[in-house]
């Protein structure tokens, strides 16, 4: 069996503050197979985004961050790589998409210029004409109607949905094997979000890219992911195939998350317990919920 694209075992993260060490992740384990789309779902502050930033290697650079556990990317232990080797992976083998596509693009450069920067990461010698040609092809793939015009535009001249597609095209430009999507499109309205997510799913499928999809929106996750991890208070509390999770949520917290979704059909906002005894008591993961082979 080939090594999974991403393997995380018993990952702990703490921040040193004046008040002592605050632990944020209490031993997370997950894996993403080749070409698999995996979602990490949880509420604000549950540790979703820090996990993503650990994988990409941004948090380790922060003073005061204490990380332990195994982070393995394509069979290589990320913590054992030199800074230069890690740096070489970013933007080439792994890339990331953020919440707000418009602010993720620098307003003073054209989309084309920024595309060229991205392509230079993998091919430093690429000339402008070749870069533009490749960029146009990539934009075409994310169904942008007039790539040449978009490449000559500044990000603020494009709509949020357009920028999101540009971001997807850029993130996949260097054929990464892992794409981390940190709540992509949360800043967009729902119809555009649905469209771009469908598009993103098709594109990553075609490229065979593995995706770590971070979201708090179960509806979106259901449409996008093959498998779901539910994270709560820095612990993975449940792991299941998407269909199974929605069919039969086992952990009380997952059940509460499902109930918390407001219904379009009305009936008011659901009442949910802020934090029941039942979610906390088993911060040890419920039986059968955890990562296979993980340490809970």
């Amino acid at each position: 069996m080939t090594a999974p694209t991403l393997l995380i075992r018993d990952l702990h993260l703490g921040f040193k503050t004046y008040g002592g060490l605050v632990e944020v992740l209490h031993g997370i384990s997950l894996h993403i197979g080749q070409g698999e789309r995996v979602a990490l779902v949880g509420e604000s502050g549950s540790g979703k985004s820090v996990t993503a930033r650990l994988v990409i290697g941004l948090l380790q650079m922060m003073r005061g961050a204490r990380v332990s556990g195994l982070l393995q990317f394509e069979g290589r232990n990320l913590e054992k790589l030199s800074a230069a080797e890690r740096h070489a992976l970013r933007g080439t083998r792994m890339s990331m998409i953020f919440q707000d596509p418009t602010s993720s693009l620098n307003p003073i450069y054209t989309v084309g210029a920024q595309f060229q920067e991205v392509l230079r990461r993998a091919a430093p010698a690429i000339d402008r004409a070749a870069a533009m040609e490749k960029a146009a092809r990539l934009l075409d793939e994310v169904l942008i109607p007039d790539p040449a015009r978009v490449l000559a535009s500044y990000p603020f001249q494009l709509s949020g949905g357009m920028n999101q597609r540009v971001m997807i095209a850029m993130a996949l430009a260097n054929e990464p094997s892992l794409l981390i999507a940190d709540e992509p499109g949360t800043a967009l309205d729902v119809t555009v979000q649905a469209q771009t997510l469908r598009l993103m799913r098709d594109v990553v499928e075609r490229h065979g890219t593995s995706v770590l999809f971070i979201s708090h929106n179960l509806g979106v996750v259901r449409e996008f992911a093959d498998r779901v991890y539910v994270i709560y208070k820095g612990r993975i509390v449940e792991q299941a195939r998407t269909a199974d999770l929605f069919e039969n949520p086992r952990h009380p917290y997952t059940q509460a998350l499902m109930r918390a979704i407001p219904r379009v059909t009305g009936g008011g906002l659901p009442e949910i317990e802020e934090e029941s005894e039942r979610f906390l008591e088993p911060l040890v993961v419920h039986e059968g919920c955890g990562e296979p082979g993980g340490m809970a």
Partner: protein
Amino acid sequence: MRRTLAILAGNPLSALGVLLIALVVLSAIFADFIAPFPEHRGAVVDFVNFNKPPEWPYIFGTDLVGRDLFSRILYAYRISLILGVVVLAVAVPIGVTVGLVAGYFGGWTEAILMRITDVFLSIPPLVLAMSMMGLLEPTLTNGMLAVTAMWWPWYTRLVYNLTRAEKEEGYVLAAEVIGASKAHIIFREILPNCVPSILTKMTLDLGFVILIASSLSFLGLGVQPPTPDLGSMVAEGAKYLPDSWWLTVFPGLAILVAVFGFNLLGDALREIFGVDQ
């Protein structure tokens, strides 16, 4: 470009600023051709025509040794502009770099750099410049040095604040994620977004640098005679007020025109770039 012209047309004050600065700059550049008595910029003595009120061919009158004031003002503009440009050309890169580094790295780097900046800011600028000039020889170069020393911290402040805000923008994070170097992020991602504010401030400051330099030479600490300088011309003439009023009024007006012009131009740029301060 069309928008720029529209803003200038819609705001007569901005247009006036452009006009005044064009006047000042052109007269400094073409002083040799415009000045009726180009040789009067140096140590020339003409006792026949000394201390004359404005009359042809001395449209601004003559000074106490018979030199044409109009010619001297044109050459003084040249010195003032050179001084302003040189001071900003040195102070801005220093101030901007310190501000970018402090703002981007934060932590100890920020604490140390910004406290040093605060030390410079806490000394009254004229006192700092005066003590530097007192210690060193009062020459044009040292004048520039003194003004530069008091000028860079303002750019550090400005750029530091801008950097703190820009650093939180998504594109900085995105650049970090794709593995851009720190130098790339600071100079290629953040700096260009600060340029409009820096340029606006530079334009406003050109006027103030001229004013400060004039204050220094008014006190006898700047450009030395016989080189013409607006500040020392005012100082010299002040002794003979109100009888020889032209000795003070015309150099004073010249300072006013330059400072006022740069201020208006700065406001115009602010509007064109959409910078709010």
